[in-house]
């Protein structure tokens, strides 16, 4: 038996039974899964979690499924990297990278939310699943639908990176390319949900889907030895992950699994799509939508549905927001790879670039523990690196050709 009590309107407080639901009937605000935390106390413990599988399902008691997981058996439980070389570069004392670029099976944080949504879709008896996506979600839905044996319909903007399109298509979804940006895709998908009886992970399965994002935060806390970093930096697109990582930390505090160190959240957005960061910097409680124009396509959402909850959590925890332009994003992708060997997509470059700005501006003190959350993989967006590296002329397979090449190189770090 699960610890789930009901769904509750985030603004209205109205309670609903556990059924597919897009939003609150009264005001269209999001609905949130409510759990019986009192009953969890003494039952959901460090020990019970540590005895679980090495996947996000080790936090099953804190997820809204009733039966056994149906997919995502290898999703989550991604590395928390102690990033000492990057820390030295940035002058930080204690830096961690939560690395979802290696998440399974589709190499982004979306495998967390989709594992929960598709398990839930099967519990509800949906015969097909789908989503509106900037690419990573579509890839994840296609992959998990394949695992679950369900047909899928994935709706994406027409101008996605080739790597993402190929990676999702190979899983066999029905791909729908839409002439417009994500916000156009999103709007159409909401109308499709009204007409077709599919389980759309970020529409009528949204309350369950978003819960999966908490596990990114649960893992940071557990992998840090059951403590919280003082600062957590997350990218903001639709506004799902930041409030949910916050909720994940708060759940652990409430259950007595970690000490409350008053964790602070910071938001990262691309300069070409920064409605939330702009509102935070201007001290506003709501954002104005924007038309995205950025290399960071996976976070190019100009009208984020949960944007105001990001703003609330940033304000509440005393954090701040930063933005990065395309060239800063690419520089940060390279810095992360050169110091830690992690190749992230432009969304991850955005997060690191913004973290650097927050450090340099004194918003993140250098002597406090920091976790930077990397949510996607650079191999899906290689065109972002176009023109970044000089051409390498091939040489003949002979030693003299190699020696000649070495002699023509500038001074080397490994020279005697």
């Amino acid at each position, binding site marked *: 038996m699960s610890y789930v009590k009901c769904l509750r309107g985030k603004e209205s407080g109205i309670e609903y039974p556990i059924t597919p639901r897009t939003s609150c009937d*009264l005001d*269209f605000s999001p609905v949130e899964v409510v759990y019986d935390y009192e009953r969890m106390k003494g039952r959901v413990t460090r020990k019970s979690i540590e005895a679980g599988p090495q996947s996000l399902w080790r936090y099953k008691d804190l997820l809204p499924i009733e039966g056994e997981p149906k997919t995502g058996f290898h999703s989550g439980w991604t590395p928390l990297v102690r990033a000492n070389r990057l820390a030295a570069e940035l002058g930080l004392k204690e830096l961690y990278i939560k690395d979802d670029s290696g998440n399974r099976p589709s190499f982004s944080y979306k495998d967390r939310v989709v594992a929960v949504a598709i398990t839930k879709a099967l519990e509800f008896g949906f015969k097909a699943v789908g*989503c509106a*996506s*900037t690419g990573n979600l579509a890839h994840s839905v296609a992959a998990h639908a394949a695992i679950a044996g369900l047909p899928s319909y994935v709706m994406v903007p027409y101008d996605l990176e080739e790597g993402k399109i190929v990676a999702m298509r190979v899983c066999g979804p029905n791909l729908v390319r839409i002439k417009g940006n994500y916000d156009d895709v999103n709007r159409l998908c909401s109308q499709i*949900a009204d007409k077709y009886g599919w389980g759309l992970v970020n529409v009528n399965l949204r309350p369950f889907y978003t819960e999966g994002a908490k596990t990114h935060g649960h893992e940071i806390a557990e992998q840090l030895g059951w403590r919280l970093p003082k600062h957590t930096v997350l990218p903001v697109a*639709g506004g*799902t992950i930041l409030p949910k990582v916050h909720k994940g930390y708060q759940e652990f505090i409430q259950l007595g699994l970690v000490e409350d160190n008053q964790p602070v959240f910071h938001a990262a957005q691309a300069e070409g799509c920064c409605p939330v960061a702009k509102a935070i910097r201007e001290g506003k409680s709501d954002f104005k939508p924007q038309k995205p124009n950025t290399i960071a396509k996976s976070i190019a959402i100009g009208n984020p*549905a949960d944007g105001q909850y990001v703003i609330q959590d940033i304000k509440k925890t005393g954090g701040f927001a930063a933005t990065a332009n395309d060239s800063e994003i690419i520089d940060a992708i390279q810095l992360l790879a050169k110091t830690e060997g992690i190749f992230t997509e432009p969304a991850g470059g955005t997060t690191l670039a913004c973290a650097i700005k927050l450090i340099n501006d004194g918003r993140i003190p250098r002597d406090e523990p920091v976790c930077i959350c990397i949510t996607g993989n650079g191999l899906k967006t290689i065109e972002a690196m176009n023109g970044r590296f000089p051409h390498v002329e091939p040489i003949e397979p002979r030693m003299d050709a190699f020696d000649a090449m070495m002699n023509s190189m500038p001074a080397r770090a490994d020279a005697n």
Partner: protein
Amino acid sequence: MPTVTIPAALRPQVDGLSEITVAGASVGELLLKLKDQYPAFGAKLYKADGALNRFVNVYVNNEDIRFMDDLDTQVTDRDEVAIIPAIAGG
């Protein structure tokens, strides 16, 4: 008259209609008329202070009115107005 598309979640408040034609020169005018005609619909569309519910997006010919003149956005007989609840990221 301009046509207003009603999302499934709001149809119970407008006698089950998916589209309504209503006269008016601006988006605000159209919506106020609908509010008068269907008070239960109006109660969901507007907050107590008279501002538009922030979880509802309004589009004219597929463009969000916040990129135009908001509720003052002008409409003609050929324009299609759509009311669509916001959905999560992806």
